[in-house]
């Protein structure tokens, strides 16, 4: 579609820098940016409107009077209070992102740098799990977590998401390239395998840790299927599950729902804007290998 149209428009001129062609590119970029930004604008606008305005017959660019009752209602909701849901989501993301990244880094280092006979089989055991798609197997995972008593518990919500085989693969690749001289120097200073990992390898992989950690944070904050399956008790609802419950309910308080969405998106959008460099690196690392 757009990839066909845009280059063709420029065939007349050769170099990439001719004035008219460049203006065309910018024009196209601005026009295409509109549908990408429109949903964000709608989200904000709707959270400031009243229920009546949202159901009106006429399109309105901005609420007649800014109305914040949606935000008050969202936090005041009896069945699914937003505060509790935000806390659950934050807990899941704040625990899962660093822990899962650390687990992957530890295992990645071990299979890359510690030469024991088990290294190869363990690595294959880890890689084999990558063949199995994550979401499609939620029923077997639910069965196991259920048999361990994990339904409607915080650990049932968090623990199954801590084991990321793809990240192990990436860390292994990184640690294989970790300079032998640094390890040797650490050995001479009396460090064992654990010491070399904790004092030298781990600090040196801060870039990859940050990249995969930020990506994992976003993934866990936005994840929906597993929290929906395992946390049936409203006290365990994450913000996604709480919003979904309100969205699929019979009577919908629309301003409150849009206000919840704003509150749930803002922290992530901030993480996204601040840590974009790490996110891009993380995606490149995971995506290209994927």
């Amino acid at each position, binding site marked *: 579609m*757009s*990839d066909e149209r845009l*280059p*063709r428009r*420029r*065939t007349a001129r*050769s170099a*990439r820098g001719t004035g008219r*062609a460049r203006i065309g590119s910018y024009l196209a*970029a601005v026009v*295409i*940016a509109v549908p*990408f930004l429109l949903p*964000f604008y*709608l989200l904000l606008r*709707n959270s400031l409107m009243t229920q009546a305005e*949202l*159901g009106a017959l*006429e*399109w*309105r660019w901005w609420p007649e009077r800014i109305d914040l009752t949606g935000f008050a209602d969202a936090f005041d909701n009896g069945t699914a209070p937003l505060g509790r849901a935000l806390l659950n989501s934050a807990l899941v993301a704040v625990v899962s992102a660093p822990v899962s990244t650390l687990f992957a880094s*530890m*295992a990645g280092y*071990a299979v890359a740098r510690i*030469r024991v006979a088990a290294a*190869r089989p363990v690595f294959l055991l*880890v890689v084999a*799990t990558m063949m*199995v*798609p994550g*979401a*499609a*197997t939620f*029923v*077997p995972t639910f*069965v196991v977590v*259920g*048999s361990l008593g994990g339904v409607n518990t915080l650990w049932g919500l968090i623990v199954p998401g801590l*084991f990321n*085989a793809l990240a192990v693969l990436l860390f292994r690749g990184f640690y294989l*390239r970790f300079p*032998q*001289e640094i390890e040797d120097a650490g050995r001479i200073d009396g460090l064992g395998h654990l010491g070399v990992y904790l004092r030298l390898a781990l600090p040196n992989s801060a870039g990859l840790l940050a990249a995969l950690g930020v990506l994992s944070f*976003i993934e866990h*904050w*936005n994840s*929906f*299927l597993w929290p929906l399956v395992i946390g049936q008790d409203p006290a365990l609802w994450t913000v996604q599950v709480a919003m*979904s419950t309100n*969205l699929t309910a019979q009577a919908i308080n629309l301003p409150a729902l*849009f206000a919840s969405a704003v509150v*749930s*998106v803002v922290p992530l959008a901030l*993480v*996204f804007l601040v840590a974009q460099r790490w*996110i891009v690196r993380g995606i490149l690392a995971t*995506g*290209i*290998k*994927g």
Partner: protein
Amino acid sequence: MSVRTGARQADAGTVRPAPGSARRRRVDWSAWRAFALLTAPLLVGLLVFKYVAMGWGLLLSFSDARGTIALGDWAGLANYRTLFGDPRFRESLSMIVVFTLVIVPLTFAIALGLAVLVNRLRRGRALFRTTFFLPAAVSYVVASLIWKMSLFSGVPSSAANSLAALFGQEPTAWIATVDPPLYWVVLVTVRLWLQVGLYMILFLAGMQEIPAELYEAARVDGAAGQWRLFRHITFPLLRNTSVAVTLLLVIAAFQAFDEFYNLLSTGLAGAPGPDGRPPLVYLYDVSLVQQDYGLGSAGAFVVTLLIVLVTLVQGRLVGFGRRDGD
């Protein structure tokens, strides 16, 4: 990376030692202990939540496990027969194939187009890249809310209906309209909005790897024109990225759940609903609403097998992107 001190060490750093050298050393218990400590958390987790789960699920899929997750009554292939006898499951399979065939090429083309466009910008490149990428921070639930209740809602003041009104169209109930399948517009655009930026980033990264001299050489040879440069240099050299992107897109499409669950609530809980019910929504309904874990497990294995097969066939077809330089 720093300069290596010797060939022997360089080898040791990157390659596993030859079996001979390992045998020469005695068993290094400190190495074993460190290895065990470092791999234990991940290994235990994978064993319990992947291997045991898959094994248990496989056994359950051959059991009569209604309302229970305990293994008990052997049922043979009964669950699989029920599964394939259920028109809703068969429809969900054909539905997801069509969905994949629509969403994958669309996402691919738009992501690639955006990457080409962003790559061409000099100033403001970061601004536009961020703009196209920002939806990746939004969850499917929030996007479904915006799409269902604002962008494509049935009220006359929704964005889609207001735009249509400019062209003299009557307001439409987008999600509720099955014939013609207008709800597909909603389903497809929401996923496009959410995922296109991520794949644009992958394409952009691939483009950074293409040496600028190739373009210069092509210009000297008279192969000017952006379209021809794209066709003869950019696109062929993005082959590995294209293969990876397609693979990721297909796997993601087959596991679609969130937007279907949140947009088409009419299709839940056994209600007939529109035919917009992908396999994972069917599995959710069977195992968590009807609590038939045997049937749910059987379905999970069929879907998993399907994804693995599609992945393998696709890998076969495109040679897994391993061959370089063609």
